[in-house]
């Protein structure tokens, strides 16, 4: 892979909590404009991995490069320019419950890009429509919305600042199949529209094969399989087969 074309590179990443290793030597890179999906059973450290890339968790060992700049040991203020080009959809939505729906969506626009309030509100309402929600809920509190609606508002918030790198943490978990499909399409549309690099973590195989250009499988703190979507569909790798067949027999034990 061409080095100037690499957006994110992870080298030998280790992280343990209370002596229990969660990530043990992750090597992974994501090309510019590529959509990488990391799959794996629950509790294998998928969230920990993207939180390391985002700088929300400090790794014990290893290095992370974004645009060929090492970000592992940056201070909070040195990290600000990176955050302005990132967007993250959290698993639980993580909407600010002290703010209304539209204030949530335009939060990054108003606070970090200093957009005036009336312009930001209009922008928020057009983003609401883009994720298939009515502008009527703009002044509601996030607590009044259903889980699926919260996730869509959260998606609108994550893409509002037109980030160059997008992270999606279990975007379809806990949603009904129809809503999950809607979210998948919204992710694809938004990532394409922005020309962004995307990293998604999920254990939903269907969602993974829809969103991904490339797929990596995380198990037991290591990347056990990695390949393109076409390779993913053909592979006889026992880990991938077990995930695909939803089987309890195979290398992934409980």
């Amino acid at each position: 892979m061409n080095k100037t074309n690499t957006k994110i590179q992870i080298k030998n990443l280790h992280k343990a909590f209370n002596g229990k290793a969660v990530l043990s030597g992750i090597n992974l890179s994501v090309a510019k404009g590529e959509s990488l999906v990391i799959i794996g059973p629950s509790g294998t450290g998928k969230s920990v991995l993207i939180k390391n890339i985002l700088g929300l968790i400090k790794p014990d060992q290893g290095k992370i490069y974004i645009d060929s700049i090492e970000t592992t040991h940056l201070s909070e203020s040195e990290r600000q320019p990176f955050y302005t080009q990132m967007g993250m959809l959290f698993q639980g939505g993580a909407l600010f419950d002290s703010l209304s729906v539209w204030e949530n969506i335009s939060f990054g626009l108003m606070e970090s890009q200093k957009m005036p309030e009336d312009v930001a509100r209009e922008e928020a309402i057009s983003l609401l429509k883009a994720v298939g929600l009515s502008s009527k809920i703009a002044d509601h509190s996030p607590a009044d919305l259903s889980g699926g609606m919260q996730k869509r508002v959260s998606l609108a918030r994550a893409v509002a600042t037109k980030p160059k790198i997008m992270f999606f943490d279990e975007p379809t978990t806990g949603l009904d199949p129809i809503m999950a499909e809607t979210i998948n399409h919204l992710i694809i549309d938004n990532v394409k529209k922005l020309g962004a690099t995307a990293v998604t973590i999920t254990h939903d195989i269907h969602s993974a094969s829809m969103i991904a250009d490339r797929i990596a499988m995380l198990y037991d703190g290591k990347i056990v399989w990695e390949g393109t979507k076409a390779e993913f569909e053909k592979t006889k790798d026992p880990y991938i087969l077990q995930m695909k067949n939803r089987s309890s027999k195979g290398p992934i034990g409980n």
Partner: protein
Amino acid sequence: MEHFLFSLGHFTLNVFETAGRFVSFLLKVIKSSVRPPFYPKLILKQFFRVGFYSLPVVGLTALFAGMVLALQTYSGFSRFSAEGAVSMVVVISMVREMGPVFAGLMVAGRVGAAMAAELGTMRVSEQIDALKTLAVRPFHYLVAPRVIATVLMLPLLTMVADIIGVFGGFLISVEQLGFNPAIYLQKTFQYLETIDVVSGLVKATVFGFFIAGLGCYHGYYSKGGAEGVGKATTLAVVSGSVVVLLMNYFLTELFFGA
């Protein structure tokens, strides 16, 4: 024996780790309070929540503290015919001690708890992480406005408590104990010195810093869902109240110690 030494070492390490983390938290709070970005709107919002909405509870406690002070002083001092000193005892106790301490304890319960619960909930529901990913620094956005507002509001609340407390003492002295109102008031102000009032306000400023600091600290580092948030809230109130009382002694020693 070995087990005991192991636990002792573990405990000691824990204490120093927590203390170190708290001190570095406070330093970060100070740094983010004096450096941009500032959020004046959020500071204003906290002014209301910390200051204005604490007025009823602080006023009520101050009123009854002043009233009981007058009653007790009268009943005690009358044993050696020193009833004339009631007004001075009331005003000096009120502005030096009761005003700042009661306002501090009330704010620790009301505001410290709210801060820990809010930040704690934001932590466990990943809202603090979300703030970071939206390129907003949580110390500047969440912690600094709360600490600044409490540091500025607690002295004002203390001043209100002082006035209401002295009024409570006056009320009991005049209405129930039969003092002459004009003489009582004259004596109240005759022996009052600037340092009495100023020391109380300085105390309140320091209390405000620690109450908000502890509230935010426990919330910011809470973990483990609803139970963790509950624990953070309890710790914020308990540690806030204890620090108010401890600090009160040392500041008194500093101002009036021999």
